[in-house]
Every structure is written in C-alpha cells, then in structure tokens.
C-alpha cells in the first residue's frame, strides 16, 4: 500500500444520517423504465388503447355481431343505414300486360299524352302501370324520377305501342317516385306526357327470403300470410346488400391475420439470421450480408406474382398464402441488418468482455446480454412492420391479388367501395378510415416504443 496520489481532504466521511433523506432513484428495472417512459408519452398511449380496441373489435366483434358477412340481400343494396323491419313476402305472380292493336304511326309532333295512367299495384318487388292507348304511337317510353326532381328521370323502357302497360322492377325502393309515360314515333318523342306519383310499399321477394332461410323452400302463398323479420344494419350495406359491420369485422380478421402473422415470422427469421451473422463474423458475415442485400433488391410485386404462379394459385383461389410467403421471403433482411448491427456493437461492449473474462459460456452471453439489449430494436421494427404488412395486404387486395370474394379484407372492402364512392361514400369511408387509423396508430405507438426503449435518450436529455 502506497500513499494515495491525491490530497487526503478530497474525500470526507459523510456523517450518518437517515437513509430516506438520500436523493436516490427508486430501484427500477429496464422494462419498468420503459413502461414509465411509455406512460408519460400520451400520444403513444392513446394509439395503444385504440389498437387494443380495434383488436377487440375484430376478434370479439363476430361474437357480439354474429351476422354472416357473405349474406346478400338484393332488396337493400348500398344503404347507409337500415333499421330492423318486418316485411311481407312477395310471391312471384304473372301479370299480363294489356295489349291493343297498333294504329297507323304518325309523327312525334302529332302524338298526344297517354290518358288514364294509373297504378295497378306498387310494391318494392314490382310497380305495375297501365294507360289508355295513344292514336298513332309507335312506342311508349316510360321514365321514372326519384322524389320531385326536375326532368323525367331515368328511362325505364321503350315498349312497342301494342302494349299499354308496364311493370317496373328496376331496383324499386319504398320511396316516392314519379312515373312519366310518353309516346314516340320511333325516333323522337312527343312533347305531351302523362305522369303520376306513387310510393311503393316495402316487401321482400320470395327468393330473397328463402335464401336467407326465413321462409321454407316449399312455402305456398295460399298457406298463410307470410311475414318475415329482418335485422338492422347499423353501418349500412354494400353494393350486394351485405352487412357492412360484419364485413368490417371479418375484413379486420383477415387484415390482422396477415398483419401480425407475416411480420412475426420474418422478424424472427431476420433476428436469427442477423445475430448468427454478426456472432460468427468474418467472411461468413460478409457473405450472409451480401445475400441479404441481394434479397432486398428483389421487387416485391414481381415476386408476389411469380409466387402465385409457382403455388398454382389461379382460378378464384385465395392468394393469402402466397402473400405471406412472399412477405416472409422478402421481409427478413431489414430485421437481419438491424439485429446484426446491434450485435456487432454489443460484442465489443466492455460488459461483454468482462463476462467473457469471467468465463461466461456463450449461451449465457446470448441470453443475458445480447437478447435483452437487442429486444428493443426488434420490438420497434415489429411495430413498424405490422402496419406495413396490413398496408401491403390492403394494396394487393385492392389490385385483386389478395383475398378472393366473398372473403373480405379491409383492402378489398376499399376496392369494392371505390366503385360507388361518389354515390355511396360509406362503403369506402369505413374500411379506409379503419386502415388509416390503424396504420397511423401502429406508427405512433412504434415511435413511442422506440423512445421508451432507448435508455440513452433519457440520459442525454
């Protein structure tokens, strides 16, 4: 023992005092610190809660809302909201359109308005009209206007003049219509018209009721008065009369299955690859990383198409398997690079050297030092990979390479919805909002996690 090389009054004994007064940080493990830092990040917390809700919605939604997402009802296409209702069943019946002999045709300017235009019956299954013949008419043109707009509305049909009646079955709703009947000379129509307004009563057609299992297949109209109860559709229906809520739930299941499934697999593979590469080092590392670079350079879409062919996926079969395989095959290098960098850095850290010096075996080094220190990076890349995968699925389903009908996914719902975006915006709005919000939430949460997992960030600030 030699004399210390510093003046002895540099250090002084602290007088004994109560331990409580000492300004010590409470003992906190790494993960506790992470949780504390995450909690203080309100944005990340909100995003996390939102994701939890969406997850619950897709997982348990189908239990709470047990509606078949593939069930169609041609009676209620593209509605933004449908209340539950009780409707009589309309049995098909033949209706003979009244006929007369045709007269000598005259020019449009001489044709009069049809007289006696009246409704025979009006239900959402069929609206039947009859009128008196117009002398000299070649055809009658029948128009229908919704509500009280200007003009005649849509041209329903041109019927030859021997018929003096018409049955309208074109997507009739229980709402006011104005029908206009006008005679023509084969080219141009008369300026004299007859019109009348009618509001059809709501019914459900026999076939629709039978397909939904509400009326037995051998039901006869003479048995009894058939009336069926139909469920409500709180978020409306799509262009084939399917329940939007049920489709959003089912679509979420598909999207999340792919969104979680693929990244979990490829990040795991990437971790192993990157860790091994860095751990072995040297020429092996060089080669392995060049291979990873090569995989990164492969174009995803092209690969996806090739895989579909290779898998023999054609004729209306789901491309989900190919999609996941393609994502796994092409997604891992990112994670591998990240983990490799981290491990290379860790390998040179003094605490690793110290552990090695003390004779720690490899498995201990990996288990105690490598994995916990790499975990942060891995979790962050996972939270960014999930929205990426959801988005990829949405994109591929949107271009028709993902799921096949009738299975929905959020992407395919958007694809269906965009067709009628201008007329029925709800069909696009709901799935698009869900995709956007979910992807955004994952990104915000990932951002928060990255900050929370980085212990140095707090130290620096």
């Amino acid at each position, binding site marked *: 023992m030699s004399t210390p090389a510093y003046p002895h009054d540099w250090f002084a004994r602290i007088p004994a005092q109560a331990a409580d007064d000492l300004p010590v940080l409470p003992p906190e493990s790494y993960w506790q610190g992470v949780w504390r830092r995450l909690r203080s990040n309100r944005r990340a917390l909100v995003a996390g809660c939102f994701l939890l809700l969406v997850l619950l919605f897709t997982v348990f939604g189908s239990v709470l809302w047990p509606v078949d997402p593939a069930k169609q009802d041609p009676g209620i296409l593209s509605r933004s909201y449908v209340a539950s209702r009780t409707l009589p069943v309309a049995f098909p019946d033949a209706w003979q359109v009244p006929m007369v002999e045709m007269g000598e045709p005259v020019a449009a300017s001489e044709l009069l308005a049809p007289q006696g235009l009246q409704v025979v019956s009006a239900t959402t299954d069929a609206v039947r009209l009859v009128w008196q013949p117009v002398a000299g008419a070649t055809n009658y043109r029948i128009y*229908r206007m919704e509500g009280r707009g200007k003009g005649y509305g849509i041209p329903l049909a041109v019927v030859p003049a021997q018929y003096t009646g018409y049955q309208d079955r074109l997507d009739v709703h229980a709402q006011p219509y104005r029908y206009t009947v006008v005679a023509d000379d084969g080219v141009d129509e008369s300026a004299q018209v007859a019109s009348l307004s009618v509001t059809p009563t709501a019914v459900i057609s026999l076939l629709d009721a039978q*397909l939904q299992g509400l009326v037995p297949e051998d039901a006869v109209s003479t048995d009894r008065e058939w009336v069926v109860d139909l469920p409500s559709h709180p978020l409306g229906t799509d262009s084939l009369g399917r329940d939007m809520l049920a489709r959003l739930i089912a679509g979420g299941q598909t999207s999340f299955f792919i969104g979680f499934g693929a990244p979990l697999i490829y990040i795991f593979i990437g971790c192993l690859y990157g860790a091994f590469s860095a751990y072995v080092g040297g020429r092996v590392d060089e080669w392995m990383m060049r291979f990873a670079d090569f995989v990164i350079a492969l174009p995803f879409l092209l690969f996806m198409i090739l895989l579909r062919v290779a898998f023999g996926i054609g004729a209306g079969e789901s491309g989900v398997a190919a999609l996941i395989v393609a994502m796994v095959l092409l997604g891992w290098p990112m994670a591998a690079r990240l983990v490799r960098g981290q491990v290379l850095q860790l390998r040179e850290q003094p605490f690793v050297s110290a552990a090695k010096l003390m004779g720690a075996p490899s498995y201990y080094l990996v288990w105690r030092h490598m994995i916990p220190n790499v975990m942060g990076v891995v979790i962050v890349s996972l939270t960014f990979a999930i929205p990426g995968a959801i988005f990829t699925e949405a994109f591929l389903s949107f271009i028709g390479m993902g799921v096949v009908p009738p299975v929905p996914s959020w992407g395919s719902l958007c694809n269906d919805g965009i067709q009628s975006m201008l007329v029925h915006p709800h069909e696009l709005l709901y799935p698009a909002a869900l995709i956007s919000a979910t992807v955004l939430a994952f990104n915000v949460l990932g951002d928060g996690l990255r900050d929370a997992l980085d212990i140095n960030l707090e130290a620096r600030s």
Partner: protein
Amino acid sequence: MGIIPAHMTRLSNIFCLVFALLLPVGALAQGVDAASKTITLGFSSEPPTLNSMESTDQVSSMILAHVKEGLLRYDQHGELAPGVAMRWEVTETSARFWLRRNARWSDGKPVTAHDFVFAWRNALLPATASQYAFILYPIKNAEAINRGELPATALGVTAVGDYELRVELERPCPYFASLTAFMTYYPVREDFFRSRGERYAADAKDMISNGPFMLDKWVHGAALSMAKNPYYWDAQDVKLNRIDIPHMTSDPQAMFNLYRNNSIAMTGLTRELLGKAVELGYPIRSFETGAVYFIEINFRPERATSNLKLRKALQAMIDSTVLVNRIIAIPGMHPTDTLFPRWLKGVEKPFLEEYPPPVIDHSLKRARELMREYLDETGQETPPPLVLLTGENPLAVQQAQYIQYLLREGLGIEVKIDRQIFKQILEKMRAGDFDLVTAGWGPDYNDAMTFADLFTSWNENNRGRYQSEEYDRLVRVAQGTNDQKVRMEAIAAIQQLIADDVVILPSYENSGVYVQDPRLKGVVRSIFGGDPNFRHAWIDDSHPAAAAGATTP
C-alpha cells in the same frame, strides 16, 4: 360483333363513340351549332383503321357508316333501305343488284359495280387477313379464296356493265341483302386504292368517300372531322354540314364534363353518371346495343357441368330478373331466358312474338329437387365446386359474386370466381379452363342465324364445346332454304333445344343510356350499320334551349 366481354359491350364502345375534359380550346366551340349546322362529338379513341375491308371495331364502323355507303343501308327506323343499289333481288342461288347512276365518289366519279367486285375480292385475299372475311362466305368460292385455295377472280361476283352486280351464292342466304350493308361489303375504287398503296385510308387525303359525309381532317390521336359530301346522291336529305370530333378520351367523366360545358352534343352514361345526369335534370335516353349476355357452360366431359341434371339445377336457380333489376340496375337492360333478342325478325312479326321463349320455372324448390337428383345420380355427397370465369371490371365481379352467393345458399355449390382480363378470358375459354363463363354475343347481321349458329359443333366460338347432332341439323335446315317459315320453325326448335339441353344460361339483352342535346334531332341509334348515325340528324332551332341562348342543355 363477335364475343364481347361482359359489360364491355358496345355500351363502352358507345362511350367510345360518343363522348371528353379538355377545356374547350376555341371557347366558342359548341356541341350543337345551328348557324353552321355543325355538331361536335367526342370519341373514346381514334379509329384503328378506316380501311373498310379490314375494320372490325365500333369506332371505325361508326365513321365508315358516315363516309361510305354499301349497296344497301339502314334507314332511321332500322329497316333496310336502298343505298348505292336502287333495286335488288335475292334468290336461293344468286343475288342481283341494280345500282343507281347518280351515286358518286367525293371526287365526282361514279360508283360502279366494279368497285364492289374489287373490294370483296380484296377483302378475301389471304394477304389482307381481314378478320371479317367470313362475313363474305355466303358468296360462291369466298371461303376457298380466303384460305388461298382459289384465285380471287374465282369469286362468284360479276359486274354486268357499270351498274349491275350479279352474285352467285354458295348456299341459300335469305339475309344476304342485309349483309351488303355491313362495312366489309362497302365499295373500294381500284384506281384510288392502287394510287395510295400502303397509305390507303391512313389519312384524310388518302380516303375517298361515297357516303353522306367525307373525312376532311384526321389528326391522328387527337381529332377527326367529317364534312357533308356534295356528291352524295341524296345530299339534299343530309341536314348537317359538319361533324367535328375534336375530343378523344376514354374517361366517361371527362366526356360528361364536356357535355355539361355544352362542348359536345351527346355522351354515354355509366351508372354513376346516370345518377348525376338525373340530378341535373337532363333528359336521359336509352338504346339497345343488340347484344345478348349469358353464362356459357363447359360441356367437356371431364367437367361437372357436362351433367344435364346439374345444368338443369343451375337453370332453375339463376333467375336473371334479380340480377338485372337489382345488381346491374342499369335501366333498359332486359332480363331474358333465351339466346334470341326481342328485336330479331321472325316470319312477319318479331321472332319472339311468333315463337315465345320456353317458360323456365325458376324456383328454389325445383332447383333443390334437381340438385338432389343430380347428387343421387352421380353418387356424390356434396356438389362439386365450380369455376366461374369473369371479367375484371367492377360490375362483372359484382354479378359473379351474386351468382356465387346464389349457388352457395341455394344449392350448396362453392363457386370460385376467376377474374381475368378480356384477352385472358378468351384464351381460357379456348382452352376450356372454366365451368361457367359470363359471355356476350353481338350480332353481325340482321338475322337469327347470327345467334343460332353460335353453338354448332363447327363454330370456333362455341367455347363450351356443346355438341348436338340435332342442333347442327336444325342449323343446316335454317341455312338450307330461303323459306322464312321453315327457317323460323328451325330457329324456334333451336331455341327450345337450348333451354332443354341448358346450353347457356341467358342473362339479359344489353342496352346503354346517354344524354343528347335536346336541339339535336333525328339521331339514329341502331344495332347495325354504325352507331350512332347522323345521316338523318338535324338541328331544331325552335327548341327552347336554342332560344335561351344555348346554355346548359
């Protein structure tokens, strides 16, 4: 005109024809200009070729119908009317046409019988490779010439002097007169054709017209313009001075905007635009395209659909009324249970009035009974899955999904929807790689035979390989005589056979909707002879819209 993709019918071709958002360059350009008797239109694309011997598409057919005239033409009621020929006579073995002496080309030279002989021979040359050569096959030796087995001079057509044309027929062809209104039958003047060589019909100056209009400007990919032909024999009946086509875009929305701006005279409507047009209070018009759509069935023996009981069950299950009225929901579409459309002529009245289609009992009960019989017959527990081949466009997919739902809920059949582009659909149909396919057929000429011979064993377009000796025999009967009564009886028997054998599942007769400037009158929408046709069109000055100073129509 051949097989057409579901919903890409002439309807889309009409968008083609009629329709564009380029800001009106000359802000004065008007859809309808009463002072100069000019109308302005938009096209979806420019005509691929205006050589009448080679054209196949709708845009070309529309322009050619205005700048050229065949022996016969269609009038404003869709009836055959004298064109270059004043009179004609068709027998079982021959046809004669007497040409008018005042028919002239746009350079003033007369149209002679030699021009027709030259055009027909030339169209049949193997080197011309005209896709529509087959339409000339009723003429003697035409098929052999087309296959290169005989020289073109062997064609059974002779010019007797300048103004009479004699045609020998290969077989009876009572509808031969209507064929001569088709574009492949239009005349081509030899000296002009030879003087232009490869350049023939490649530009406005390389064209010569004998129709009511002549092409006076063709800026490739951008604009076309047709002016009244002063040499046309019936020029006093042509009321328009000019048809301008300065807009070319395939975007129906852009076309609609042009129409709203009053820059074009008419435009086709999609289902979405239809709602918009109704909202704006425009008068909406509809027209028949003449095409019939159906689900074609694969009869190859390895396919489940080769079983009659299964096909019967499908037939009972699929009621096109719901499909057309609810799912497609475009006004004017007519649900049908037969291959033959309503406009086809029978002996005297429309064919379907004389021979109504067989009544098919579409009911769930009957469909399920037939399904059970099918399963018992084949000893299966559950029905086999079926592949439904269909197009890519949203409406086709929607229809396919409805059928998928119908067959799953109704009969327990799992349907796989195979979405493909049109070219690929044709390829898969040819290879037989489907069970069901949504298909359509546009007529080439005005006779039931254009539909009836579709499912003969020798027709290459019979992609489902339906084979029936009885069917073939009936077609031969109908082709073998000029007696309309006998022919229509045979066609009616074919109609019955199609329903009994479930050769196809008919869906609907196609139609389109469009808006047209109310001052423009007399525009003919026709199934044959180029659509729309402006030969008889005129501008009504007295219409209120004209007085109001041509604001939005």
